[in-house]
């Protein structure tokens, strides 16, 4: 297990999970800074490009990203790339279909219970799925650090299964749609970063 790559992927997945949950704030953008170096180690240049865009972003730019974020992910426009696995995998393009139930079972089996606040967002939201990947990677890292190779291996197997059965079945297409529809460089690059991160996690 390459600990550095694992940690880099974990940090990226966690950051992306936050970003898809709500429009980026200054704090979210600032949190990208240390990831630029981490992702470079992974050979993912998108974080660096994203970081450069973020550096030059003033309040108006941040507001544009918030508007773009809402446009893309909150159903404001009819052809929006809704960030839910059910939309991409279901025939009917409806929310809360079978994939939401499937991932919920997976989360419950591993004890992954993100804080939803007051919102009842379905479990197949990209934020949760990336968050789950970060959760597994963190658990694997911790297991490895305490010398529990068996457990670390199990967790990596679960990661592989989740990536194959869920993540790769929709997130690359979602990222394509975001790139096509987004009106800001920031979110276009974010989608590319997402795709590369997911691929990197799959390769771990």
């Amino acid at each position, binding site marked *: 297990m390459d600990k550095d790559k694992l940690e880099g992927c974990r940090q990226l997945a966690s950051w992306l999970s936050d970003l898809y949950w709500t429009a980026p704030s200054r704090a979210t953008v600032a949190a990208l800074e240390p990831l630029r170096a981490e992702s470079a180690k992974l050979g993912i240049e998108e974080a660096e490009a994203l970081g450069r865009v973020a550096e030059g972003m003033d309040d108006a730019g941040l507001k544009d990203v918030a508007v773009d974020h809402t446009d893309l992910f909150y*159903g*404001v426009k009819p052809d929006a790339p809704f960030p839910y696995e059910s939309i991409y995998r279901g025939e009917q393009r*409806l*929310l809360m279909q079978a994939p939401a*139930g499937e991932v919920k079972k997976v989360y419950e089996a591993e004890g992954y219970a993100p804080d939803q606040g*007051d*919102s009842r967002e379905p479990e197949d939201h990209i934020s949760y799925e990336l968050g789950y990947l970060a959760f597994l990677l963190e658990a694997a890292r911790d297991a490895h650090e305490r010398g529990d190779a068996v457990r670390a291996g199990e967790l990596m197997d679960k990661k592989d299964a989740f990536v194959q059965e869920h993540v790769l079945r929709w997130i690359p297409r979602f990222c394509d749609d975001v790139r096509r529809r987004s009106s800001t460089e920031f979110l276009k690059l974010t989608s590319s970063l997402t795709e590369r991160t997911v691929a990197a996690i799959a390769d771990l």
Partner: protein
Amino acid sequence: MAKHINKEIDEDGIQWTQNRCFFCHMNCSLYVGVDTKTGQIVKIEPNEEQGTELCERIGAHGENAIRFHYHPQRINHALKRVGERGEDKWEEIPYEQALDEIAAKLTELKEKYGPETLVVSEGTYRSDHLWARSRFSNLFGNPGNIIDPGSICWCWTYTINLSMCGWPLELAMPVTPEYAKTIVLWGTRRPGEVYGPQSPLSRQFKGLLSRDGWKPRIICVDPVCAGLAPVSEPWLNIYPGTDVYLALTWINLVIQNKWYDEDFLKYWSNAVFLVRKDDNHILRTEDVVEDGNNDDFVAWDAITNGPVFWNSDENRYFNAEVDAALTGDFEVTLKDGTTAACYTAFDALTERMKQYTLDECEKITGLERGKIVEAIRAYACDGPATMVWGVGASDAHGVNSVYGGVARTILRILTGNVDNLGGDYIGEPGPVPVPGKGKEFPVRDSEFEMAEVVTPETRKKLLGNDIFKVMSWEGFEPVDKNYRKMWDIPRPQVHQLLASTPLAYDAILKGDPYKVSAWIAWGSNPLSWAPDTKKLYQALKALDLLVVVDYWKTPTAALADYIMPAADCFERPMATSLEDGNDFTLYGDRAVQPEFDRHMDFDFFRGLGVRLGQEEYWPWETYEETIDERLDRVPDMDYQKAMNQGSIYPCGAVQPDKYRQTLPNGQIRGFATRSRKCELFVSMLEDIGYDPLPYWSPMFESPIDTPEVAKEYPLRLTVGGRWSPMYHSEWRVPGQGTRSMFPWPTFNIHYNDARDLGIRDNEWCWIESPRGRIRQRAKIGWDIKEGCIAVQSHWWYPELPAEEPWSQGIFESNGNLLCPSDFESLDPLGGNWVTRGLLCKVYPCIDPKDRSEKEIPVEEFLKGDTFYHREYEHLGAVEVDKLDDERSYGANTLKAPAEPHTMKPDFKPGVVDRKA
């Protein structure tokens, strides 16, 4: 035996909830199945025991409703506007933050302009949380500035009918139609179009007409031969907007032919009360004796040959035995010693109605006199008879609307079709209270509203309070007093008090009579239903604060400062008396908690209220707690029982002729009116400054009343006839299946008119009125009265962009754009605007001279020398063989070439060589 008990879990792990649909007013009972493993709604079944059949809006297996619930384009999170109104730019914010900001803004605007600066608009009962809105706005200090399509849809009938009969007896669904020998469907279509062919209302009529034995006679009043009009005897294909003239003529005919129920008039109506001939005011005892009363009246007793006083409070004459004269001229000495020449209210009505002759009726309504007489004779003489309420009857007839309602109820009173089996039903919220015994029926909406906190000074500030009094506190208060007297509960503000929508426009744009700066539109897309769409658009853009609570981003929502996500009927429990306008109450439990960030309307108003200092008045945290409180005083009743039962009828089975009952206090019950009688001479109207008897006013636009306008706009226009599966402005969103059934707006036009105008079937046409023009597709037929067109209303296009100039097509095809908001066009009593009975012109969108197809004489085809032949040869795609005389006309003229044809080498299908 119920198929599922509420909240039971079956062997497949599906939890079944007894829920109620809110996609229309039928509120059918459903079983909603939720997979307990995933929390998802997976099935919807009809509650057949309660008579449900699933309609197209739900889907045969609930699939459309499930799509509705999980549709990605639902508003699932609070959105805050970024940029200018009309740019359609948003940022998502947490729901609680949105409430904080809205409350802060409302506080600022209240301090600047006063609490009357807020208007709230809502739809036609799209949620049963109306009382929560009332409570919030009353506590806010608002005078009740609620605007709602109820001004032209049923709600305006409340005050009138409560004044005349003590109950809103105009109903869409008659209570005992199985006994009716004659049913008048006035401006409404059965079965099918209003609530869908599967609805209980539609099936009620199908049942009536298909049962064994005698069947009722149906009389339809409708310019379009729709619904049951084809089997109507007769079909009264009336000019739009002239229905009230018909009603007045009918009154005249009933009286002249003595087709009235004399006993009912003498003993149960105020027809016998005396009216002064000099000023047509009803005589009160306070006019005649010093210790008289404004609420007590005078009749002429044939036994004593003198005046006799009516004790309204005790529902009896002060004298023991009276034979009140129904007709006659009498001299009454007044308290000042003078005498007044009087006649009876019946005589006053007779005199007023004389002018409404058959000759004039034919001219104005376009109906043939034989049909006019046949229909009213059937209603009056072949009873019992019911007159079913419909939006087309007079609701949206502008200047004649309210008197249309008065006229129809006069007909009911004249013929005794009040609270009889087969007639029009008088309901009751519960048993008349017995002294010393508490109320044992569920708490009504009105009891939650807190109308008492609205002070007299505040009430005066209701928009139009002293103008359109039938819909204001002026008309509400007397009716409320009588209602409380009978049942010891208040009348609901809910939709009995409404500000006429056009008044809000000038309040926003000009500050007249004061500045309206804030608008909360919940379950309401006023750009779709309100008149004069363009002016409303300007008004909405001029607001300081616009908040919309809705399922979808409608054209109105697209202009908002905040769009708040609304919980649908599967996500909220229901306990309602349907605008507090019915006697029964309906119950349905929520199947799932609100998904995403959706919230119930109760949560929205409570949330705002708590932030605006109302916390102590919102003791319930959940809606379920409010339902518990409703049921608490009902013996042997609790939440689960109510949900399983689905309904509570507080007085049990339908009882006719309740007015004859003796009350616990020994009085004859009568009606919950001021005089305890049916009032065909409406004393409340007199008291608030209106003529107590109906009359006809010239129409805002008609060939007779505005011939100059008719020169340019020669066709009569009616806007707003309903058709299923659409429901008001809803169901146009793609993905529900409904838009597939009815993808485009259509208008009805007669074959002869279409021919004259060069219009072809299904062609897009402009329909233009002095307010502007829209386009719809022509449906040519013989089913609409010649000289009239029937235009669909409420159309918008969710597939179009929401930003300007698109605005989701709200200006494209919405019939309400053609309708005026001019003050002069509004009903003077209720502020009803006009959509039925205007003028327009129609012409094809594409000038017939510019139509693309060529008209080729058949001889040229026979020669094989036409434009088409030459074009095909030029394309080289197909070798077109020339017709010769030996081939039969219409035979396939294309002969396969000897060799398989090949495209020209440089021909690429679909690619246009722009250099060529």
